[in-house]
């Protein structure tokens, strides 16, 4: 069965907290995984005594195990891909972060669109 590296939501209402887990794709989100390889706290926090307004997010990750599981075919979910690409374990999936322009349509298609 497909192995996934994914997030399992714990925490409370309005206070999410994720375990980074390796689990079979078809198992329930919060079921017992094969392995917990880290945590992800999505709540942005400020440093103590820092009034600059700069916030950070904290992630614990066993990068050795993450690399191993990817080596044996585990597939990170999109959100996990994004995190793993930050530490250089995966190639970034979405490089271009600029908003996309609408596709340039061929001239006859434009004509077709106006005739409708």
């Amino acid at each position: 069965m497909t192995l996934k590296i994914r997030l399992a939501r714990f925490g409370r209402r309005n206070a999410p907290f994720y375990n980074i887990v390796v689990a079979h794709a078809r198992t329930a989100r919060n079921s017992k995984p094969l392995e917990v390889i880290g945590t992800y706290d999505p709540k942005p926090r400020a440093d103590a005594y820092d009034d600059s307004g700069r916030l950070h997010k904290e992630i614990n990750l066993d990068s050795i195990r993450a690399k191993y599981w990817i080596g044996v075919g585990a597939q990170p979910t999109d959100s996990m891909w994004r995190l793993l690409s930050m530490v250089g374990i995966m190639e970034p999936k979405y490089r271009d972060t600029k908003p996309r322009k609408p596709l340039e349509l061929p001239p006859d298609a434009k004509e077709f669109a106006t005739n409708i």
Partner: protein
Amino acid sequence: MAGPPRSRDTVSGFLDFASRRNKKFGVRVVGVKEGIAYPALLPSSCQDRTNLISSRFSLRAQLSQPWTTQSRTYMARHRRDFIKWTRGPGKLLKEPRPDQTNYLETKDSKGNMLKRPFPLNPEFKSEAVLDDKAREMIWEEVMRKGKTIKQVSAELGVDITRVAAIVRLKEVEKDWISKGKKLATPYCKAILSMVPTKSFKSAEQQNVPFEPINELHIHASTMKQIFWPTSESRHFTRADAAKAFHKDMLPADERVPHPELLQMEKSLLEGKSVWEAKAEFMDAAEKSERNAAERQMRRAMAEDSATRKFNTERFEFRFKEFNSEDVGRDGRRKKAVGWKYGMPSYDRMKGAIKIPTKVPQIGWS
């Protein structure tokens, strides 16, 4: 006309009132009820009552006030006595006495005058607090003169943690003043005028210590009773006693907040001069504080170097390395990160204290 039940006094009062009204209007009502004439054959007490009833009906329209009287307020004897007391000896306690305490004054069994907030509770003692002048002085000593917290603590006899807290809060206060924030000065003044306060002359002069500063905190490992067989010839020291309790336990001389003060006393016993011993103490206190600061710095730097940081436009992502194999046999080791499977989380347990017990240090994340 079912009115509220009346007490005897009220009824008699009513009778008087009714008869007076009758005289006034020149009406003689005898045995008349709702327009029916009765012969005056009833006994006198009953006649009175009839009189009352009939007059009530006949005079009802003429009287402006309603036919109820206020019930008498119930006041227990204790309350009456208390009100009497507040007008007598308790009068002094109504307003606070300026710049001194205004506690109840009673005598104990030996006739000594007691001044306590609650005279019957001997355990409740109102401890003195440092007044603003003293706190300002502590801040001056630490921040302006650059003395270490330990030195100031030893000189004035104020607990280390209290000195640190005063400096921290004074910094906040000064920050607020510089930002033009409003302080709760009247509140502070009012409280300080009502509680016993302690002030210092100056740091150079000999001051009466504010509180005991070198008390040994009771460690849980020392609470057990141990029978430790040892030979009589052996010189069993406090260090040995500490080792008997736990292999990592420090001797009591090192666990106290001011081990340097103990060393100073030892030097004095050895015959060193007071100035020499004091200079030694000042050096040792400074050194210990510098060591603590360096330790903290090293810890922060080690943590910083172990963290990989990735900046995005909005947030900084901080990755810390963690060993997922060091989580115990069942993955539920306390040190292991993340939420545990099949284990209750006590974060919502009743009575759990969530007030932080530590002040975050710079460099902690």
